[in-house]
């Protein structure tokens, strides 16, 4: 056979592959990239290294983000008391209490993949304080494992769920590999995948605790009834007690899909978002005009959209996009709201300007008086909500 024949076969095969390749939506790709940056614990758990303290570079950077928020507030309001301000800002979080869900709060304290500066921490903290959480207590037992859905909270854009998995045999539990959520009324897929974080302890690999997020498409009807599909994997518990060695693939058992049905309380679909289109919130970033064009508040997230006249000059990996921080104001109290470290995407508009979107946690359920939007160059303005 001539060389060019082999090449022809390859080219033909490649052509067919492209033709049959299902298009991956931007949404899926973005979610994968975000998950890659946000959730090192998925693989950390495989080697049983959860609850081992602060090691991950992501965690270090996230912790530094807390410091930035603290320092920003310090710089902006109390230049002469910088360290004290940072300490005071962190202190309330140490004192937070999630009641019966308190064990889940430890996931933010002890694990490598999420901490106090995660935007979901703020949102969940406020949601629990305002009883905006539905206790589920739904369990499914099969193949020696019990999957327990403890509680959920939701808004138009996401469902956040608290879950535990318990093993009744000698098998320890690995992170859920495939997760899918189905609208039980329409049988349509709500989400192919779900960001989760959590894990087992080295001492007890037979008990897994986690929190997960299901992104919702706000343009679709709110899914009042859902079924979560989880593919779980196990390996001998003894193998998971070694923090340094991953269990061999031959020892990992993939179990049939767990199907977890649950209903979402009507309050979640009734809670409307609050949208503002400020006219006069103008800043400059790198000497370029910047204007806040839209602020959308939901119970579990806040989105800030802005217009930048042109793209800032590049630095390091790419563009020096504006660095934005958010503070919720109620009376004399200022509460920093965490930003999703990976938000800030956008693109060029027809008029040549740039549209950027930033996502934060939410303090909406506390009914704040205003939102103070701060740039790291020190400029700040307040959006009055009442």
């Amino acid at each position, binding site marked *: *056979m001539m*060389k060019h024949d*082999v*090449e022809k*076969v*390859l080219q033909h*095969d*490649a052509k067919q*592959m492209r033709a*049959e*390749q*299902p298009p*991956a939506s*931007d949404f*899926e*790709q*973005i*979610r*994968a*990239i*975000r998950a*890659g*940056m946000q959730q*090192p614990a998925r*693989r950390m758990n495989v080697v049983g290294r959860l609850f081992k303290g602060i090691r*991950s*570079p*992501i965690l270090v*950077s996230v912790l*530094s*983000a807390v*410091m*930035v928020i603290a*320092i920003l507030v*310090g*710089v902006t309001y109390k*230049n002469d008391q*910088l360290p004290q301000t940072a300490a005071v800002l962190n202190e309330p979080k140490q004192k937070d209490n999630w009641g019966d869900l308190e064990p889940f709060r430890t996931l933010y304290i002890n694990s490598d993949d999420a901490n106090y500066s995660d935007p979901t921490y703020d949102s969940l903290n406020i949601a629990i304080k305002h009883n905006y959480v539905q206790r589920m207590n739904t369990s499914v037992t099969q193949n020696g494992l019990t999957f327990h859905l403890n509680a959920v909270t939701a808004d138009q854009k996401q469902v956040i769920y608290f879950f535990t998995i318990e093993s009744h045999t000698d098998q320890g539990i690995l992170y859920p590999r495939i997760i899918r959520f189905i609208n039980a009324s329409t049988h349509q897929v709500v989400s*192919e*995948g779900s960001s989760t974080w959590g894990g087992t302890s080295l001492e007890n690999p037979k008990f897994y605790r986690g929190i997960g997020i299901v992104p919702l498409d706000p343009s679709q009807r709110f899914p009042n009834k859902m079924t979560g599909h989880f*593919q779980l994997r196990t390996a001998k518990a003894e193998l998971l007690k070694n923090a340094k060695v991953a269990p061999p*693939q*031959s020892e*990992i058992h*993939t179990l*049939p899909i767990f199907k977890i049905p649950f209903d979402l309380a009507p309050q979640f679909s009734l809670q409307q978002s609050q949208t503002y289109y400020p006219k006069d919130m103008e800043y400059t970033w790198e000497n370029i005009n910047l204007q806040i064009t839209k602020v959308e508040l939901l119970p579990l997230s806040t989105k800030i959209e802005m217009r930048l006249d042109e793209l800032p000059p590049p*630095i*390091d*990996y*790419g*563009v*020096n*996009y504006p*660095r934005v921080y958010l503070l919720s104001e109620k009376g004399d109290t200022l509460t920093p709201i965490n930003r999703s*470290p*990976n938000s*800030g*995407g956008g693109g060029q508009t027809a008029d040549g300007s740039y549209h950027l979107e930033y996502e934060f946690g939410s303090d909406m359920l506390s009914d704040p008086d205003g939102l103070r939007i701060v740039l*790291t160059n*020190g400029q700040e303005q307040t959006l009055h909500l009442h």
Partner: protein
Amino acid sequence: MTVSKADTELHGLTADYACEEERFYQTVLSHRNQLHQIAYSYLRNNDDALEAIQEATYRAWKKRKTLKNPAAFKPWIIRILIYICIDEQRRRKKISPMPQQMPEPSIHMDHRRMQMLALLEKIKPKYRHILLLRYYNDMTVPEIARILDKPEGTIKTWQHQALKQLRKFMDKQEDWYDEA
């Protein structure tokens, strides 16, 4: 507002560190379509391709300090991705899931294409990279050389060897030519 010099420096330092994540994310995002195409060409499954991108993003972020030249970011992250894909292919060979656990195939693949996939997975990884990047992702020899961090001459030699090895496997496949 008055900010002392010390405060400004501290502020700048920590703020830059915090925003590094954002810039990194934006850069990965700008290459997402190509990363997905490459991962899919190796794994032929959308979910696995997305998972490979997720893992590559994580590893790249973790190892970002080892990247000396920011301009080489794209070949660097593609290199990380293709190593992950090769690992996943090895893992698939080792594990044969029970039938009820097999994910439902999202596409129909004919017998010939299944054979070709199996043949590609038999080829040495370094040769497999060449075939998949060259023929399934339309990359040039210089582009592949940058990704694999090898001289262009080496890539040309590997391409020749890869085609030779594939031809050998195809010759052994008795029904390959019968169905052509």
